[in-house]
């Protein structure tokens, strides 16, 4: 009986010792660390895991992605807890630059948000333009025919939604108090889609999360308004200014930015899950902006995500003009 007890103790301590040893051996000793705060909608697609793998093969730098909402990602960077941010909210990015926190901004990719809803489309918004679609949804909402689900969590997608209501001449803050037809989910995109699906409601989604849920048969909502100017979604990267936040790892941040805009990584972005979904999840933006190869979309990006006619005004180049040649 004593023996049994001894074995028990040995097994328990062996588990903990082996766990500790394992982690000690595989811990990131000697490699430099780069912390990237990014948005959940981007991280959740899995694209960044792939980029991390390719990057770490080439460089002795360990990337740590912290996936949070856009607001939180920016706040982390300001506090010195991230070296780089990868986000999709031009207005917030502009503020981040002008406050002196961000430098070396590069637009790396884009895609489109989608307005999704039930296949029966009671508000008849299919292929309408965004403004018209939203106005119809409000009209039908008032007469109790349709429901809209809003993220309500200050995420990049939610900020986009607010801006869309604004451009349709409506005010999100007023809409959300209108009652039963306007629901605030207060949670991530996936759960919001499930709620919208359950209620046969309309909502705004990023394409990545939608395709994932749709292709797995979790939702039957359809894309009703897709690729159009108003729904453009632009991802860009910025390093944290070492003059403002001295503790950041600026050198490796620049290395990572250069990798993101390299031909190799841009191809990776282009092809990511393209075969699986039969359509692009992301489109690379670097060559498009450099060569004006698809001028309509390039113009949309410039109008939506450029500041003073450029992706990054010269005073924020921070000694790295090679990024912009």
């Amino acid at each position, binding site marked *: *009986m*004593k023996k*049994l*007890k001894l074995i*028990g*103790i040995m*097994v*328990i301590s062996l*588990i*903990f010792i*082996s*766990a*500790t040893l*394992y*982690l000690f051996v*595989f*811990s*990131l000793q000697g490699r430099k660390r780069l*912390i990237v705060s990014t948005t*959940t909608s981007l991280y*959740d697609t*899995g694209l960044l*895991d792939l980029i*991390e793998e390719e990057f770490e093969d080439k460089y002795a730098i*360990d990337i*740590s*992605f*912290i*996936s949070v909402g856009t607001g939180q990602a920016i706040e982390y960077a300001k*506090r*010195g*807890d991230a070296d780089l941010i990868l986000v999709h909210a031009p207005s917030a990015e502009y503020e981040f630059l002008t406050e002196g926190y961000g430098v070396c901004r590069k637009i790396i990719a884009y895609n489109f948000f989608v307005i999704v809803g039930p296949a029966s489309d009671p508000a008849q918004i299919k292929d309408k333009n965004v403004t018209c679609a939203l106005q119809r949804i409000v009209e039908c909402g008032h007469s109790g025919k349709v429901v809209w689900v809003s993220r309500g969590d200050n995420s990049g997608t939610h900020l986009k939604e607010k801006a869309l209501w604004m451009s349709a001449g409506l005010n999100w803050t007023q809409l959300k108090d209108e009652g039963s037809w306007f629901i605030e989910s207060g949670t*991530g*995109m*996936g*759960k919001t889609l499930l709620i919208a699906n359950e209620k046969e409601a309309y909502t705004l989604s990023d394409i990545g*999360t939608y395709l*994932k*849920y749709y292709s*797995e048969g*979790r939702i039957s909502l359809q894309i009703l308004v897709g690729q159009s100017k108003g729904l453009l979604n632009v991802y860009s990267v910025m390093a944290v200014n070492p003059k403002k*936040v001295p*503790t950041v790892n600026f050198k490796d941040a620049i290395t990572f930015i250069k990798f993101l805009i390299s031909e190799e990584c841009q191809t990776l972005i282009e092809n990511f899950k393209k075969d699986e979904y039969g359509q692009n999840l992301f489109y690379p933006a670097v060559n498009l902006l450099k060569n004006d190869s698809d001028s309509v979309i390039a113009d949309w990006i410039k109008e939506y995500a450029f500041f003073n006619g450029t992706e990054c005004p010269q005073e924020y180049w921070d000694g790295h003009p090679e990024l912009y040649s």
Partner: protein
Amino acid sequence: MVSEIFEGLRRAIEMIISGNPAVIDATLRSLYVSGTATLLALVWSLPIGIIIGSKNFRGKRLLKGTFNALLGIPTVGLGLILYLMFSKSGPLGMFHMLYKPTAIIIGQAILITPIMVSFSANAIEAVGTEVKDLAKTLGASEAEASMAVLREALPGVTLAVIASFNRAIAELGIALMLGGNIAGLTRVLTTSIALETTRGNFELGIALTIILLLIVFSLNFAVNMLKREQT
């Protein structure tokens, strides 16, 4: 719903048998982080528990009440407070602990301190002063008498440790806020579950949950076996 749980169960078994590296990594890290946190918390919680459980002093009820109330502290809230402390621009920023396992260990140790203190104080109180008095009359020193009490209260203290470990390994907020859920560095079981859920991989989430439950169950089982041996 049922199909997802069954699919999850199947995936869990599959992943354990095939030794899925991401799952093994998260599982071992969970064990390491929460195990260390439990040991760390024990260092200060047990003495506090002994004092509260065996001594009478002014403000004892208030202290006990405080620890009891802190049992319900929300992990996200505690995580946020500790994040602000550990942040580079926070008071403890110079130690560079954020986004490392150490930060989660400290956070979880603080989280489970109230459980350990309350449970062990109650266990020791239940043994009563008789044991201590008896030991003293038999010529034991104060420290020896305390040890005698502790020995009597051992089942209750063990329960305190197990409950603490379970709370630590099952919590999400602190691991997320202080660890950042970084793959291969601070990703533990609970943060993996949260991530796979937002990614829409529900079966994988269920599979990881089953693994977490298996750990908790087998550990409790092992401890129960030990206790049975003792009595």
